């Protein structure tokens, strides 16, 4: 907000004084680019090729690249329920996480005062233990003879034989819990920069607290909200640990199918095909989302 001084702006640097300076940005890019090429682009191409292998091949008889585009409709037909479930569970978990995460991030950023750092540590602390261990802990929390199920049965929110573990509810709760920090941290960063004086100005200009939230707080936290949403939704959609540990095959998501295609059934072409389908579906959702929110420039 500080006034700009036209005179104080440095003159643009003399264009391309020497070849060394012109190449500098590319040299700086080189290590990262090489890394990405070797460990992302090359495997990706390999995966794309694998998805087009002859589906009748196997690990023992060998695979042949036969440009079998038919793998895609076949895989989609066989596993569309798991695809649907992935997006449904991740979507519900995202809504739950937003309902909990936004107020949490707002409270830490604007209201926590000297407790701010402690609360932030609390958000991050679970990350110090393994994802797997945390999900196993949830298995205990949600177990049939655990305190939570007992309480819910007592207040008749669950029937006498009702359970949480091995239900879609357990999977969604697990997803919500495991990915919540990815939503909260970028949101916190955005809300922390929010100038309280803008909220006062809004209030001074006839905006009720709710209107101030809609017209000032929410738009100004949009970058963090979008980043957090993506960081939450993308891994949650591809996750298979929660469905594996907290659900049954009836709750399996597409990640579980890919996992078993690669590691159990050793059906590499199908695993690769499903991976590519998942990737395209997520990209489509993300682009659709970014178009709606109109903030392509943040990516």
């Amino acid at each position: 907000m500080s006034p700009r001084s036209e005179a104080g702006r440095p003159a643009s640097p003399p264009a391309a004084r020497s070849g060394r300076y012109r190449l500098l940005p590319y040299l700086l890019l080189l290590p990262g680019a090489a890394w990405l090429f070797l460990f992302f682009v090359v495997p990706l191409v390999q995966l794309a090729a694998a998805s087009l292998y002859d589906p009748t091949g196997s690990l023992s008889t060998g695979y042949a690249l036969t440009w079998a585009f038919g793998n895609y409709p076949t895989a989609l037909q066989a596993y569309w329920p798991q695809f649907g479930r992935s997006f449904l569970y991740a979507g519900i978990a995202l809504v739950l996480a937003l309902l909990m995460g936004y107020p949490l991030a707002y409270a830490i950023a604007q209201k926590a005062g000297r407790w701010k750092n402690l609360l932030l540590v609390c958000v991050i602390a679970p990350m110090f233990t393994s994802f797997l261990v945390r999900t196993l802990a949830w298995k205990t929390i949600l177990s049939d003879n655990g305190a939570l199920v007992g309480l819910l049965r007592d207040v008749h929110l669950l029937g006498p034989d009702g359970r949480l573990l091995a239900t879609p509810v357990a999977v969604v709760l697990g997803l919500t819990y495991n990915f919540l920090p990815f939503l909260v941290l970028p949101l916190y960063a955005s809300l922390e920069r929010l100038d309280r004086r803008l909220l006062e100005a809004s209030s001074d200009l006839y905006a009720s607290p709710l209107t101030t939230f809609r017209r000032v707080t929410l738009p100004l936290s949009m970058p963090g909200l979008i980043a957090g949403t993506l960081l939450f939704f993308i891994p949650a959609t591809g996750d298979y640990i929660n469905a594996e540990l907290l659900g049954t095959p009836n709750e399996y998501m597409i990640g579980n199918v890919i996992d078993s295609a690669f590691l159990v059934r050793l059906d590499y072409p199908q695993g690769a095909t499903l991976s590519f389908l998942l990737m395209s579906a997520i990209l489509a959702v993300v682009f659709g989302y970014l178009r709606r929110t109109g903030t392509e420039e943040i990516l």
Partner: protein
Amino acid sequence: MARETPAGDLTLANLTKTFGTFTAVDDLSMTVPQGSFFALLGASGCGKTTTLRMVAGLEEPTSGQVLLGDRDVSRLRPYKRPVNTVFQSYALFPHLDVFENVAFGLRRRGIRSVAGPVRQMLTLVQLDGYERHRPAQLSGGQQQRVALARALINHPQVLLLDEPLGALDVKLRRQMQIELKRIQTEVGITFVHVTHDQEEAMTMADTVAVMNAGRIEQLGAPAEIYEFPATAFVADFLGQSNLIAGDVSGGSGDDLLVTAHGTRFSVPSARSRTDQGPVFLGVRPEKLHLAGAAVQVPAGNQYLEGTIIDASYLGVSTQYLLRTGWGTELSVFVANSGAQQRFAVGERAVAYWHPQHAFLLGRRADEADGTMPVRNEPVGASP
């Protein structure tokens, strides 16, 4: 407190705000007439911004009332008050362009046709053509004017300005002072302007309230306050003053007699804030004149002799510092009109003034002479 104020006057009644043990605003009562340009002047930490925030509703009074006309708004939320603020930091919404910033208040009140009023307001603050600019693309002066337009467009009963010119450079500030005054005259809305800059307050305001430690020291027209300050604080804060410690030693007719450092002076009773006990005899530096010797002092004037210890040539005037026999330094401004005799450092001189130009203020017995040194020279201690 009289309640029969005409609708629209802003009245503060026994307004108090404490933060813990610190009293920011201390039992403050005053009335700002509708349509006036009112300045709250004081050093930082004197409670002027807190007062303003209580009028805006951004701070809740510990006790006391804020009245708009007959209506007690003390407990109303800020968005329910017909009052708008121009914030010190401008607080423009960075995600909205100039047009939407200015239209914000209208839209929140459900007014549909905002384009006309917004353009009219942008013309008033001379920002036509900037509708689609973002605040970050504007200079400080332009941002300031957007903030003003954003508040004024709502036609508030009272417009609050919290040091709105503080962030601008001197030249721009001067220009905005004139512009603000023009706009206030044009729209006729009550302006309450908080500032620590006495020149700014005097240039713009019809009425100035000088605040100190949460209280109003003096309230009145700028000339009135300047010519006849009520307290030593005001005399020092508003311009420079030579304050000579003395005691009232009697009266003669309409005059009071004051003895200071063994010399007797007289001050008209009408220009005295007290008529007994320890006092300060005050004379503004520009009301003092210099002469080479006592015999040159015109009849009816009073004088002090001393040595010139500093002379600063400032173009329009020369500021002299005269040290009296007992060590007090007096500041004297002499206009460089060409008619006055020039004095060199080390020369003996006589500072004289007409009793009508002096004023008498109450003094605590332990307070010594107070003069505003021209620069950071030590003030001479009385023996």
